[in-house]
C-alpha cells in the first residue's frame, strides 16, 4: 500500500499474463470456453446495469447478513467459552475437529431446509465464516498474558474488569485477523450458496451465463466478485487501522 513501487512488478506480471491470455483466447477463438480479457471487459460494461442493480446487491445482502450473523454468533460463543471452562471444554475441540471436515458438503441440504430464500445462502456463508471468527476471537481473549491477569487481580480487579480492561482489548487484533479471513470466505460462501439455489446474485449469474454459451458473461460477474472481496478486506484493514491506532506500525 505504502510503497507504490512494490506494485510495479506484480502489475507487470498481471499485465503480461493478461496479454498472453488475450493472445491465446484469440488464437483459440472459442470465446465461450475462453473469452479474451477485452471481451470480458466489454461484457462487464454491457451488463453493468443489471449486474450493479440486481445481482451485486443480492450478493452483498447475503454477504453482509452472513457476516453479521457469524460475527454475532462467533464472538458470542468465544466470549462464552472464555467465561466458562466447561463450555470451552465441550465446544473447543469440536470447533477444531469441525475444521478438518468438509462442512461445506452440507450446503446442498440447506436448499431443502430454507428453499431459494436468502437464508440458504446465508447459512452457507455463516457455516464457513463462523469458525475463523470464533476461534480467533477466543484465542485473542486467551492471548492476554496470565502475568497481566495476575497483576490486575492484585489491583482487586473483578471478572468483569479483567474482561473489559484486559481480555477484550487483547482480543481485538485477533478478532480482526479472523474477520479478514471471514470476509474473504464470505464471498466464496455466497458464490457457492448461489450455485446451489438462487434467483439472483453474481455467483448465480455467472453459472447462468454458462448455460447461455456466454463465456465473457461467465467471467464478468467473477471479476465483480473479486472486487467485492478485495474491497471488503480493505474495509476491514481500514477499520483495524482506525481502532488499533495504538499499534506499533510506523
Amino acid at each position, binding site marked *: 500500500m505504502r510503497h507504490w513501487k512494490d506494485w510495479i512488478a506484480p502489475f507487470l506480471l498481471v499485465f503480461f499474463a493478461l496479454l498472453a491470455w488475450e493472445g491465446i483466447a484469440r488464437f483459440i477463438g472459442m470465446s465461450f470456453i475462453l473469452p479474451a480479457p477485452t471481451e470480458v471487459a466489454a461484457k462487464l460494461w454491457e451488463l453493468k446495469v443489471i449486474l450493479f442493480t440486481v445481482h451485486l446487491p443480492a450478493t452483498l445482502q447475503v454477504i453482509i447478513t452472513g457476516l453479521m450473523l457469524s460475527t454475532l454468533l462467533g464472538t458470542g460463543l468465544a466470549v462464552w467459552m472464555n467465561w466458562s471452562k466447561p463450555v470451552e471444554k465441550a465446544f*473447543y*475441540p469440536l470447533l*477444531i*475437529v469441525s*475444521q*478438518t471436515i468438509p462442512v461445506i458438503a452440507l450446503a446442498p441440504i440447506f436448499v431443502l431446509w430454507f428453499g431459494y430464500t436468502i437464508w440458504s445462502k446465508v447459512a452457507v456463508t455463516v457455516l464457513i465464516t463462523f*469458525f*475463523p471468527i470464533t*476461534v*480467533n476471537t477466543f*484465542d485473542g481473549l*486467551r*492471548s492476554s*498474558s*496470565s*502475568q*497481566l491477569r*495476575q*497483576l*490486575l*487481580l*492484585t*489491583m*482487586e*480487579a473483578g471478572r468483569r*474488569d479483567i474482561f473489559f*480492561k*484486559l481480555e477484550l*482489548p*487483547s482480543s*481485538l*487484533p*485477533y478478532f*480482526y*485477523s*479472523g474477520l479478514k*479471513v471471514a470476509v474473504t470466505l464470505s464471498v466464496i460462501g455466497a458464490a457457492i450458496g448461489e450455485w446451489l439455489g438462487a434467483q439472483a446474485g453474481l455467483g448465480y449469474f455467472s453459472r447462468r451465463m454458462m448455460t447461455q454459451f456466454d463465456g465473457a458473461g461467465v467471467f464478468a460477474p467473477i471479476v465483480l466478485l473479486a472486487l467485492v472481496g478485495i474491497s471488503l478486506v480493505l474495509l476491514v484493514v481500514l477499520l483495524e487501522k482506525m481502532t*488499533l491506532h*495504538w*499499534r*506499533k*506500525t510506523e
Partner: protein
Amino acid sequence: MMRNNQHGQAALQFNNVSFRYPTAETSAAKAKGRRNHPLRSFRPFPAIKTAVAGSQTTKSQPLPTHADQLLFDSLQFRVEAGEFICIIGPSGSGKSTLFKLITGLSRPETGQILLHGTAHDSLLGKVGYMPQHDLLLPWRTVVANAALPLELKGASRKEAEQRVTKLLGQFGLEHVANSFPWELSGGMRQRVSFLRAVLSGSDILLLDEPFSALDAITRLEMQEWLMEQWKRRRTTVLFITHDVDEALFLADRIFVLHDTPVRQLHDISVPLRRPRNAASLHNPELIALKQQLLELLRTKVKR
C-alpha cells in the same frame, strides 16, 4: 537510618506460613490445558499470531519440579514500616511465590499473613505490586496505564487520569504522558510501572526483579532513581533481585531464601548508612558481606 520499630506494629508479618503448590499432575495438566490444548497442534487454520507490540511473555517460568513439595514451612518474619527489604535466592527458591502469598494471588496452607497487624480475608488489592518486566497494557497510554488501579478502585476514567497527570512530573514522565508503551525506553517503562504500583494506594510495595531486563547502565540509574522515590514516599518496599550488588546497594535488610522448603529466611542487615552511592559498596565490610552472600547462593546453584 534504620527505620525499624520493633515495638510498633509490623507493616507485614508472616506467622507460621506454610505453602505448597497443588500436585504436579494437576497443576501441569492445568497449565497445559490453558496454554496448549492438545488439539491446538491439529489446527488446520491455526491461531493467527498477531504480533501485538509490547506484549512480553519471554521469561520462561521455572519448571514445576518442586510441586507438591512444601515450599514454605512455618515461615515467620516481620517487616517494619518504611523498611527496604531485598530478597535474593536461587531460581526456583520461591521468591515470586512469596509475593504471590503477600498479594493474595495464592493462599497459605496454614498460618497467617498480617498487614499492619491485621489478618485479611483476601489480600488482593491491599498491596502495590510491580511485576518483573514492565507489563504495561500496550493499548493504553502512559497516563491510562498508570490510572488503571484508580479505575479499578472505582474512579471514573477522567478523574483517574487527572490524578495521575498531577503525579507525572515527580516521576519524570511529564513529556510522555500520551505516549504508548512501545514508544518508551525500558527505563521509562519501569517508571510507569512503578507509578502504577504506587497508585495502588498501599504503603507496601512489592517489586519482583524490576530491573533485570535493563542494561547495566540504565539499571544503575534506575536504582538511584528508586532510592530517591523511596526516600520521598517512605513506603515499605520488598524487592526481589538476582543481583547481590543491587541488593547491597538498596536494602536495609536482605532476606536470603536458600533451602527447600524454606523454614527460615537468612536475615542480613546491610551495615551501610544512607545516602549511599556506588562507591559505598567498596568498603571492606560490604565486600566481605558480598562474598558471603555469593557463597550462600553459589552452593545452591551448583547441582
